[in-house]
């Protein structure tokens, strides 16, 4: 079974792009989406995709408290059902 990180990278490749370029491979565990140039609108949209994929609540105000991709993976592994 794919790891949380692998699933997240695949989701990013399928749902997130910056200037037309998918960014799954560019995700850096020590950085946030904004560090890649992802807009707040795309970040909110991606949070909705993650909610569906991992069956987890990820409201914008909660996502705002998760600064890095590494923190997001830890949150998903602790809360996904």
């Amino acid at each position, binding site marked *: 079974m794919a790891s949380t990180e692998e699933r997240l990278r695949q989701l990013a490749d399928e749902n997130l792009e*910056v*200037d037309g370029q998918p960014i799954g491979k560019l995700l850096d565990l020590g*950085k946030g989406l904004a560090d890649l140039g992802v807009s707040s609108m795309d970040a*909110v*949209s991606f949070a*909705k995709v993650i909610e569906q994929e991992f069956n987890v609540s990820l*409201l914008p105000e909660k996502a705002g408290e998760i600064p890095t991709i590494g923190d997001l993976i830890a949150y998903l592994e602790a809360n996904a059902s």
Partner: protein
Amino acid sequence: MSTSAARCLWSFFHKAGPVTIIHVDLRPNASREASSLLWLNEEEQARCRQYPLPGPRRRFALCRVALRSILCRQLGCSNERLSFGSSDYGKPFALVDGEPAAISFNLSHSRKHGLIALVPHGRLGVDVEERVSRRDFDELSEAVFGPHEQSALACARGSDRVQLFFRLWTIKEALVKALGLGFTLDVSQFEVPQALHQERISIFRFPHLPEVHWRVEYIGNEDFSAAIAHELPPSQLGDQSLQQLNCNVSERRGIYQ
């Protein structure tokens, strides 16, 4: 990059009360991008190198150079004396010789357009978004808009819906940025006043912070949606114009409380 070359990056866009809004040209231009790095300090250049994609790298570098150019003029200081700090929530502020400068600013960019808003005093937020049709308007609306905003969007069709979506988004994000708490605030818990669905200027108060008044102005044009929010100082709360605007807001209080 010379001062005049940096000046070519930006142009006056709008005056909203005491707030000046500057437009930054973010179209690709290799020589301009290369020379812009000379204006940035080591920390900013390192940040540039960390962007893996050229678009975000360009937008950060050109907006920061334009901001430096504008602030140096406003504050009467050299580029070398200017640096930036940031709040716990990442909102930047200017330092001259390491001391906080007496100016409030905020910056936003979207694709080819950047906007910088400046004012001598008061918290300030600006947001700009190029309008692009998206498949996920409904999901985004559920995440960030309140019931009245969602109803208004549900009633709109075609390009009117796209216009209204970006209008509400930019107003809401400008307010959130002005407050300075990022998206740690539940943005669906406050609504853009009905007046601002069509009119350009209104006064706003957050439900959890009713004593603070914000002057909100929609400043979008045919190229992009954009909005600014500026905290009104107590000295302006007695102005006749504000009292008139407050009446309008009070009549509609129910829609965002």
